[in-house]
Structures are given as C-alpha cells and as structure tokens.
C-alpha cells in the first residue's frame, strides 16, 4: 500500500486496477489501527443508519463475506450475537466494506456495507444502486470508466483480489465525511488560502481492493482511507500535484470538491514544487 499514488504531473482518468501481489493481503493494520477501529465503533453508535446498510435477502451472501474477512485477518473474531455479521467483523478491521451482488443484469447493485469513512456519501444512500448509479456523480466515469469497470467486475475470478487507488484533497483531517458535513466542508474549502492550505488541507488516499466470493459470486470492496496534511508531502509529490491541478478538467475538480480552493492549492503546490 502506498500513500501517494500519482506518478505523473498531469491529470489522468485512472482506472489503475492491479492484481494484488501474492505476498500482500487485502486487509491492513496501519499505525492508526486502534484509533480508527474505535472511531468506527463510535460512528456505528452515533450514525448506525448512515454507516451500515444491508438489503433484505442478502444474509447468506453477507455471511460469506464475513467468513472471508475472518480468513484474511487473524485478529478478527466472532464475538457479538447482537450485531449483524458484517458489523461484527467490520468493526474489527480498519477498512470500510461494501458488497455488490453478482447480478450483472442489474448492473452489480450494492447490497450491503459498513462504510464509516466515506468522502461525501453514505452507504445507506447507495444501497440497491447499480455500479453506474453509484458512480453517477463521478465526473468522467460514464465516458471513461464505466464499461471497463463493468467488464472488470464480470471477469473477476474468485478470491483473486485486485486493488486500485483513489485520491482527493479535503479541508479537514477528519475521516468520516458523511453527507451531513457537506455545507461545513464547502465553507471550509472557501476559506482555504495559500498560507493555510498546507496545514488545513489533507491529501486523502483510498486504497481499494475488490474480491469475488467463491460461492455467492458477490464482490467485496474494501476501502482503507489514509490522509496527511499537504505540508507533509515531499517536494516531488508537490511538483506532481502542481501539474495535476493545472490539467485537471473542471468537472472533475468540481466533483472532487477542489474548485472552491483550486487557486490557493495551485499557488501552494507551485511554491513548494
């Protein structure tokens, strides 16, 4: 897992899917593991309806996902009789988890998830939506990535995990960016200036893995979110970011929430790169 996935100083619509190396595991334990797992438990306590969702009739499929998670993380135990299985295992790992069914005709709809650290969306809002719908707001997705994504999902082989990265810049170090924070974050974006950008804004990376379950065919997405203040990026990384922000298409900048602060960010990266 890397925490800065960009390599070129220009924007690209990245598909970026790669097979997980044989010696790598889909689930991680970073130095922030304990804190983030505790935060997930708190979010489940305060925002259960936002962070957890399961479609009725998906119980068998979710059971298989829970078994797979336990097989990938020896620290995950079966312990709660009260919580749904996905919650039980999902609150013992750092990653968010979303599950889509192997229903290609319906566009691979989302059937379950425990997602505590989203970037402006909630799993409840995505439940039942097809891959095309869930990524509807993603600028350029329909033109550049949808057909490749559908092909990828259809061709995933059981238990052969693939991974990819997604990136963003947010005016907060907080992980749980549920939709209810949208207004506050928009206001924070407008207040970013060149002087404060390095401390106030974080480079945010999602390390996503996709794995098809052998029995149900369901596909499990795991998402590990990491972030660090822009001031912690290296000069090379700032040079790359300066180039990316100079070439990013307007709709993509809008979708990523960069537009209100793109001027100060460009100045910041130009100065540091």
């Amino acid at each position, binding site marked *: 897992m890397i925490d800065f996935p960009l390599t070129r100083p220009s924007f690209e619509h990245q598909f970026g899917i790669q097979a997980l190396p044989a010696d790598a595991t889909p689930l991680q334990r970073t130095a922030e593991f304990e804190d983030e797992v505790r935060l997930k438990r708190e979010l489940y*306590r305060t925002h259960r309806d936002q962070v957890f969702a399961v479609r009725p009739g998906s119980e068998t499929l979710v059971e298989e996902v829970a078994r797979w998670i336990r097989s990938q993380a020896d620290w995950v135990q079966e312990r709660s009789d009260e919580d749904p299985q996905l919650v039980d295992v999902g609150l013992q790992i750092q990653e968010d988890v979303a599950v889509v069914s192997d229903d290609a005709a319906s566009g691979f709809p989302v059937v379950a998830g425990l997602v505590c650290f989203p970037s402006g969306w909630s799993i409840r809002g995505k439940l039942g939506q097809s891959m095309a719908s869930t990524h509807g707001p993603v600028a350029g997705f329909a033109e550049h990535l949808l057909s490749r994504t559908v092909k990828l999902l259809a061709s995933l082989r059981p238990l052969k995990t693939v991974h990819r990265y997604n990136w963003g810049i947010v005016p907060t170090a907080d992980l749980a960016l549920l939709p209810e*924070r949208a207004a*506050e974050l928009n206001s924070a974006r407008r207040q970013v200036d060149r002087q404060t950008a390095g401390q106030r804004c974080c480079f945010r990376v999602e390390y996503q893995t996709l794995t098809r379950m052998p029995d149900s065919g369901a596909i499990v997405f795991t998402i590990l979110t990491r972030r660090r203040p822009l001031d912690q990026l290296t000069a090379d990384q700032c040079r790359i970011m300066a180039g990316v922000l100079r070439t990013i298409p307007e709709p993509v900048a809008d979708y990523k929430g960069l537009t209100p602060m793109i001027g100060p960010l460009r100045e910041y990266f130009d100065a540091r790169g």
Partner: protein
Amino acid sequence: MADRIGPTARPPGKNDGTQSWESLLFCHWRFDAAVLRPLVPESLELDLFEGQAFVGLVPFKMRDIKPPWLPQRWAFNFFETNVRTYVTYRGEPGVYFFSLDASSLLAVWAARIGWSLPYHHATMTGSQQDQVHRYQSHRRGGQGKHRVAFRVQDPLGASLPGTLEYFLLERYLLFVLRGGAVYRGQVHHAPYQAWTAEVLDLEEQLLAAAGMPAPGRMPDLVHYCPGVDVEVFAIERVAKKEASR
C-alpha cells in the same frame, strides 16, 4: 490529544443510579481561554476546539432519579440548570461545572455531599406554550437568576465525531475537586439526538455569579435535545491531592 471516544463506552458493572434528562437546551458562548483559566482548577486542562474555549448554560428537566434499589414510584423529578466548561484530565475529556442550580433541596444536599458538586437550591419553573419553551430560575439567597425562552427548529441527529457539536454535546465524564483531589464521575447514555434551536429571550446572571464576565450577547451556539435515559456511575478519585486555585 484527548480521547473523545473512550468515555462514550459504558463502564463495566452495575450503575449507581438512573435518571432521565429531558428538554435540554444547550446554550454555548465562545470564551477566550485566558479568561476561563483562572476559574478552573490548575490540575484540569481547558479543552479547546480549534483554540477556543466554551462555556455552556444548560437548563433541563431531571426525571425519574433513583438509585437502583429504589422502587420506581419513589423516583423524583426536578429542574436543573448547570453552567460548565470543558476540560481534560490526563487526556480524558469531561465537564467542569462552575455551578448547578436545582429545584430540589434534597438533590442539592445529596449532590453536594455525595459528589462535591457546587449545587445551589433555586426556585425553578419550566413550561411550553405553542412552540415556545421557557425555563426560569431564581437561586435562593443569592445572585443567580436566569430566564430563557426558545423555539426548537431543525433536527440535526447525533453528532459526528470531529465536529463542534460532538465536542460540546457528547460528554460523559465530569471532573470535580474534592479535598484537593481530582475525582471523576461518569454517565452513560445514547448519543444526543440534537436539534437546532433559537433563543427568543434570555436573561442570565449565572455566568457572572460564577466569576465570568457576562457575555452580553445571545449564545453563539444553541442546541436542543428532547432527552436521554442516563445511567450514572459513582465518582472515583483519579488523583491524589493536587494544587487547586
């Protein structure tokens, strides 16, 4: 860095009592930390949100207060208004009370003796007419009136960790000095389901009575919560005698 999540977990074992807190109005003012610092025991750190200290004025109804062994029919009710700020002790965030006014003399005695909290006996009323809620209080034998009228507005739901609302509302520990030693009390309840609220009328002397400069303005933040059922756990000493101001 304060651990804001740890105290939300229910402590193991039996509680020492239960109660319900109802119709809570949370009025908060931003304060310069330097103004509050002399008013808070040295052993407690002021807990700041983005460099800012806060003082809360919280009137509410206490209902069904009883220890576990007391039958429900003996549980009692009263009004309370507390004035507080937020502190940490050894990384644990909690509440430090400047004053608590209650309409029950029994509650005042019990809390002063059992918890060493600065309770005052007050004549208090609460009412609701149409959409307007009112609380009124007059501390007995001293300065300390307050009167507030407010209207509940829009639901916010539970607060998200990391937000100012979470910082202000999701507090499960209190710290108090007793014989110079720091004691910690804990409560447990479901997260507050908060609403925005608008203060229509406010007269308050409680902040000044606690030694603070009167804010001279409406609260900077106002929240309302319909209520929570609370488990109360006995206070325990967390540090030996320490210097206090």
